[in-house]
């Protein structure tokens, strides 16, 4: 763990400790990894509801007459496709086509966009964005990362719970965003129907001032929502095959290698140039050096984790970047960058754990579906 003095603290820390959280360092933040147990929390989200503190994530507001054009050049997905109050998954690439961050962008006004970026990347992302701002003032960027407390309410019971707590809230459709309550200040409360678990659910953003985040947490707790930590967040997202930046995505891998090509609008005539586009086009014409590949153990074995060698016909062909014992499936699952020739579902491989090799096979995503 890094020096605790330098760790950043979420506005909900007291809530976590009161709920019996075990706190760990994650991307420079002191965050809850679990409360009652990862299995228990994971099952709550799959069967009823759970909540995650996502206050470590960054919120960035981009507005102005030049906002759309600027965002098109910054991000891989075509921002112009977004109707008002809609969101999309997208990525910010370096000039080599490598992933700086993956994020969700919501259109919250005619020329206003709300970006939610990864907690561990906030400073880097903002530095990258600011360095590319036009000098004519046509794009205004506001870092609201420290102004929001944010909670993800996830699971099949989420809508019922949201409606019970906010009867007058306009409940957004999947990937949409709406005001959570009427805004009385410059930091609006927002509810987005997005998440990182594969279940229905919402991400709630409330101004950190006046203890709004703690009040929201308490209300959700009183409504029977189970507090869930980063441990369950990781197993839930991996069962769906959602990538984690820093494990599955990196500045040295492109979205094409990560299997996220559909979020890069290379063939959309309205998209135009964007950072990393040339590298993606070159890679597409020359062929991919590797492909992020879902793997499953076909024998009983230890939980899979990152950095385990992947073996084909006796030779190491890559290593796992994410791995877990899937709580829903009871099987070892992992992602690994492998030569594309080995990425076809059904391909037999082995994964080496502590010098023992376990049979595995390439599968299709998601690992888990209802």
């Amino acid at each position, binding site marked *: 763990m890094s020096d605790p003095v330098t760790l950043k603290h979420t506005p909900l820390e007291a809530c976590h400790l009161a709920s019996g959280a075990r706190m760990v360092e994650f991307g420079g933040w002191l965050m809850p990894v679990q409360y009652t147990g990862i299995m228990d929390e994971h099952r709550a989200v799959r069967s009823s509801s759970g909540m995650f503190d996502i206050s470590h994530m960054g919120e960035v507001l981009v507005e102005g007459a030049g906002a759309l054009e600027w965002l098109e050049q910054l991000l891989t997905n075509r921002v112009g496709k977004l109707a008002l109050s809609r969101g999309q998954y997208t990525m910010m690439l370096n000039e080599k086509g490598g992933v700086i961050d993956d994020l969700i962008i919501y259109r919250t006004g005619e020329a206003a966009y709300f970006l939610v970026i990864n907690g561990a990347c906030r400073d880097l992302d903002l530095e990258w964005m600011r360095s590319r701002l036009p000098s004519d003032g046509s794009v205004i960027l506001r870092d609201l990362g420290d102004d929001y407390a944010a909670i993800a309410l996830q699971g099949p019971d989420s809508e019922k719970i949201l409606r019970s707590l906010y009867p007058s809230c306009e409940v957004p459709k999947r990937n949409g965003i709406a005001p959570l309550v009427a805004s009385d200040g410059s930091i609006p409360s927002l509810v987005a129907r997005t998440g990182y678990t594969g279940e229905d659910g919402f991400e709630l953003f409330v101004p950190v001032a006046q203890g709004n985040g703690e009040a929201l947490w308490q209300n959700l707790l009183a409504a029977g929502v189970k507090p869930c930590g980063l441990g369950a967040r990781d197993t839930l997202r991996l069962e769906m095959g959602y990538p984690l930046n820093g494990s599955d995505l990196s500045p040295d891998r492109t979205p094409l290698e990560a299997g996220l090509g559909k979020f890069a609008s290379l063939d959309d005539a309205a998209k135009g140039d964007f950072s990393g586009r040339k590298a993606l086009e070159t890679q597409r014409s020359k062929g991919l050096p590797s492909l992020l590949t879902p793997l499953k153990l076909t024998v009983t074995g230890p939980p899979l984790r990152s950095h385990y060698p992947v073996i084909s016909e006796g030779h190491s062909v890559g290593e796992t970047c994410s791995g877990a*014992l899937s709580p829903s499936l009871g099987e070892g699952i992992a992602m690994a960058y492998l030569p594309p020739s080995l990425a076809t579902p059904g391909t037999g491989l082995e994964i080496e754990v502590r010098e023992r090799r376990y049979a595995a096979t390439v599968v299709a995503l998601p690992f888990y579906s209802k």
Partner: protein
Amino acid sequence: MNVPTDLRYAKTHEWIRSEGDTITVGITDHAQAELTDIVYAEPPKVGAEVKAGATAAVVESVKAASDIYSPLSGNVTEVNAELASNPALLNTDPFGQGWIYRMKASDVAEIDSLLTPEAYSAQIGQ
């Protein structure tokens, strides 16, 4: 946390029960609570030589893999086969059905260097 008075303890949270030179090894109640949901156990092989303080087994929770250090030196005579199908025994009965392996100690005098129940209780702050 339960700290049975008839056992001796390693600083690294393993316990031993000795019957002559046959030693049973497991992890403590404190250790299982810290590890949480144990989903996999990899005991040593029967016949393996283990050294005091060196890794002899691995237990894994959903979140992390943890080495289990042999409290004593000697040879493994038996392993708990039940753990393969039911690793949660390490959580539910760490001093009983959740034992990990049995060994013949090569030097029973090593037992004297292990913690007493009182000393181990003090170490875990109770």
